[in-house]
C-alpha cells in the first residue's frame, strides 16, 4: 500500500447525501478481474450523458474541478454495496482523500485499505468546504500525522482516526504481513476450539 503522510491538493465538492457505491461505480464495470483501471468509469451514470459525452452539469465535469484530489461530500457517503471497486475508482481517478460528515462503515474501511483517506469532519466544516470548493483554485492540506485539515486562509479542522489504521497508512504496510506476526495466536485459538 502507498503510504499517506501529508497531501496538498485541489478540492472538488459533491453536495449530495447518501451517495451510494452503485453511483460511484455502476455494476456494468464490476466485471474486471483487476484492481486498476476503474477511474474512467467513476460516477459513470452521472458523469456521462446517454450518448457518451460528458454531462456538463455533473459536479466533477465543471472546469474548476479539473485535477481535484480531495473530494468533499455530504452525509452517509459510500452507502450500499460493499464493492471495493468504489475506492479503487476514486483513487484511480486521482483522489487521495474524501471528506464528509459521515461515511458508511464498509466503504470507510475499504478506503483505508487503499490509501484513500476518508475524513469525517463536523457538518458545519463540510458546509464551509463545499462553499469554498466552488472556487477554481481552492486547495486544502491534509496531515495524517497531525490529524488535521487546513487551508492557507486560516481554516483548520481536526479529525479522528483509529491509531492502528493510522500507523498502517503512515507506513504503507501490508496488513496481511502484519497479521502473520500473530499466527501463533491463531493456531492456539484453532487448537483450543477443535
Amino acid at each position, binding site marked *: 500500500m502507498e503510504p499517506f503522510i501529508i497531501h496538498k491538493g485541489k478540492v472538488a465538492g459533491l453536495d449530495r447525501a447518501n451517495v451510494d457505491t452503485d453511483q460511484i461505480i455502476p455494476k456494468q464495470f464490476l466485471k474486471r478481474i483487476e484492481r486498476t483501471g476503474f477511474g474512467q468509469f467513476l460516477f459513470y*451514470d452521472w458523469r456521462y450523458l446517454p450518448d457518451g459525452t460528458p454531462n456538463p452539469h455533473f459536479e466533477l465535469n465543471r472546469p474548476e474541478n479539473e485535477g481535484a484530489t480531495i473530494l468533499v461530500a455530504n452525509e452517509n457517503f459510500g452507502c450500499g454495496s460493499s464493492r471495493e471497486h468504489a475506492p479503487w475508482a476514486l483513487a484511480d481517478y486521482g483522489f487521495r482523500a474524501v471528506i464528509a460528515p459521515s461515511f458508511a462503515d464498509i466503504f470507510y474501511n475499504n478506503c483505508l485499505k487503499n490509501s484513500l483517506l476518508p475524513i469525517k469532519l463536523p457538518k458545519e466544516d463540510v458546509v464551509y468546504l463545499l462553499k469554498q470548493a466552488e472556487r477554481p483554485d481552492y486547495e486544502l492540506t491534509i496531515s495524517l500525522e497531525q490529524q488535521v485539515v487546513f487551508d492557507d486562509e486560516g481554516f483548520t479542522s481536526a479529525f479522528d482516526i483509529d491509531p492502528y489504521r493510522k500507523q498502517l497508512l503512515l507506513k504503507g504496510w501490508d496488513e496481511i504481513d502484519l497479521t502473520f506476526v500473530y499466527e501463533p495466536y*491463531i493456531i492456539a485459538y484453532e487448537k483450543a476450539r477443535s
Partner: protein
Amino acid sequence: MAPKTIIEKIWDEHVVYREDGKPDLLYIDLHLVHEVTSPQAFEGLRQKGRKVRRPDLTFATMDHNVPTVNRFVIEDEVARNQMTALERNCHEFGVPLADLNSPEQGIVHVIGPELGLTQPGKTIVCGDSHTSTHGAFGALAFGIGTSEVEHVLATQTLWQHRPKTMQVNVTGALAPGVSAKDVILAIIGKFGVDFGTGYVLEFTGDVIRRLSMEERMTICNMSIEAGARAGLIAPDDVTFAYLRGRKYAPKGEAFEQAVEKWKQLCTDEGAVYDRVVHIDGNEIAPTVTWGTTPAMSSPIDGTVPHPEEFATETERKAAQLALQYMGLKPGIKMTDIAIQHVFIGSCTNSRISDLREAARIVKGKKVAPGVRALVVPGSQQVKKQAEEEGIAQIFIDAGFEWRDSGCSMCLGMNPDTVPAGEHCASTSNRNFEGRQGKGARTHLVSPAMAAAAAIYGHFVDVRTLYKEAVR
C-alpha cells in the same frame, strides 16, 4: 459475570488476540465467496505466494453474473471471464464451489442457510454487503471489501473494532398482508438509512418471534440498508427446526448438543445496549418506496410526499432529486403509480415462502397487459421445490417468466434489466438510481405487493386482497 447481549457473547467467543489501542483480531468461522468481489483477492494471494488458510471454512458460488435463461450461454465475455476466474481460483486454492452445474447453486445468501452452513453463534463474512442476512440465525454476519476478503482467505481472521449494540424492538402483531419486508422498510423509513452505522442491530419483540426463518432473513438482509453492517435475531426453536437435517448442520447426537449450546445465545436479563429503538407492528402497513433510497417510502394507503415536507435542506434536495429521477408528482396516491415491470427475486425475497406468498395472490389470475413479470428463485433448490409444489406453474399460467436462480434484476449485471424511465415493482433491497438499469425506476415492495402489482398494473393494497382470499 456481567450480563451480556448476544452480540457481545459471539464477539468475545471469537477474539483471537486483544491489545489496547488496537482493534480485536477476530476469528471467522465461515467465509462465503462469489465471483464479483473475489478475483482481486485471489490474485493478491497468488502474487505473494500465499495459501487459503482454511479452505474447509470457505464456500464459493456464482450468482451475480449468471444468466437466468440459457445459463450456460454467457454472451458477455467479461462476465464469463469472471466466472472462469472463480472456477480456476477455487480449483487452485482448494475452495469448494457450487458452480452453474451444481444443484446447490444460488444466491450466496440463500444457499448458506439452505445448506446449513449458516449456524447460530458463528462469525460469517462475505464480500457482499447483504451478508447481514445470515444474522437471522443468531450469527454475527457482515459484509467486507475485497482487501478484507484477501485477509480472511490468508489468515481466517479480521481486525475489527467492537461494534456498538442496538436493540430494535418490534412489538404488537402484523395485520394479514403485512410482511417482514414491510417491517424492515417501515423501520428504515422511520429511523433513516444511516441510523445503524457503527452498530450491530438485534431485532427483538413479539413480531420478530413469530416470524419464520425466511422472514427473519428478509429483515436481517436489509440491516445494511439502515447502515448497520450486521443485524441479528437470537436463535429459538424456529431456528433449530429449520437447521435440523440440513446438509452441513451437525447430525444426530451432535445436533442435540449444538442446540443446547445455541440456546445460550440470547441477550442476558439486564444487559445494556448502546441504543434502543422501538416500532409498533400494529401500525405497519404494506410499504412502497417512491424514491431512490430505501428510506423514501410511504404506506400503500399514503401518497408521494412533497419535498417541502422534509425537515432539513439536505433532505429536501434529496427528495427533489429523487422525485425527478422517479418521474413522480408529489401528492399522487401510491396506488396510482403504474408499473411496467415486476421482479420477484433477490437475496431479500426469493425463498420458497416468498414465492408461496406471491403465488397465493397470483393464482388463477393473469399478469396485466403491458407488464413484464419475472420470478427468479434464489437457488436451484428453491426452484426445484417450487416446481414440485406447483407454484412455478401458477406463475407460468399467469404469464410470469420463470427463471433459473441468480441475482438477476436485483442489480442487472446479467442481461435482466429495466429500461430507462420504466417503473418496476421489485422485491429486492435497493432502489438506488440505475440499480436495475440506467434510468430504471425501482419501487421496493414485499412479494405479495409485487405479485398484486403484476396483476393490476399498478400498486394495490394487498390487505384488501387477503380479506377476499380468507373468506
